[in-house]
């Protein structure tokens, strides 16, 4: 009965590979997000989808491509992985798109990506 789940939890891969991280939420939320947390714990928004429509696309290399097959899923595909991509990636979801007291963002457990 996990609200926001991500797979895999750990991902170790070689530079240059292509990998995907999957996210699913069972909260019935309309909006989903991807955040990146670096080694200094700095957390930064990457993308957000609302009802399968991209609404936030921060300055992220286009090697990163989010895909939302339906409202409950937001996957992150990364091409040609680089050392600097090593981080923890968090998925989150919220009922609607605008942050507010009635629109809390729920975070998944994170995927630790290590690029060798």
């Amino acid at each position, binding site marked *: 009965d996990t609200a926001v789940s991500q797979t895999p939890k750990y991902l170790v891969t070689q530079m240059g590979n292509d990998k995907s991280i999957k996210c699913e939420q069972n909260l019935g939320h309309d909006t989903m997000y991807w955040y990146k947390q670096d080694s200094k*714990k700095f957390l930064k*928004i990457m993308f*957000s989808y609302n009802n399968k429509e991209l609404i936030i696309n921060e300055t992220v290399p286009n090697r990163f491509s989010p895909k939302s097959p339906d409202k409950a899923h937001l996957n992150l595909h990364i091409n040609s992985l680089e050392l600097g991509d090593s981080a923890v990636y968090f998925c989150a979801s919220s009922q609607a798109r*605008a942050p507010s*007291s009635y629109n809390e963002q729920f*975070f998944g*457990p994170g995927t630790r990506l290590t690029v060798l």
Partner: protein
Amino acid sequence: GENVGLHLPTLSVQEGDNSIINCAYSNSASDYFIWYKQESGKGPQFIIDIRSNMDKRQGQRVTVLLNKTVKHLSLQIAATQPGDSAVYFCAENRDSGYALNFGKGTSLLVTP
């Protein structure tokens, strides 16, 4: 761009004491602020929030204070417990947009 930052990267307190975690923001247009708690190996978890038309908001053992004059936000935790040990982040929602901008995080360590 505008930044949300924290004064103290680490804070160590004794169990039972009160904790105060501070955050500074630079964008006077920020209208909504949130505190998140992140335990080791987990995702951030919502603690409490406050809108810019308020100065103070209280929750269970937590209080958030907002000083718009000096663009300062603080989180007060009463009677700190070992389970409060975590990294705490402030986040702002600028100009009623869709994104949350997170500060750098403060690590709170509660010692017995």
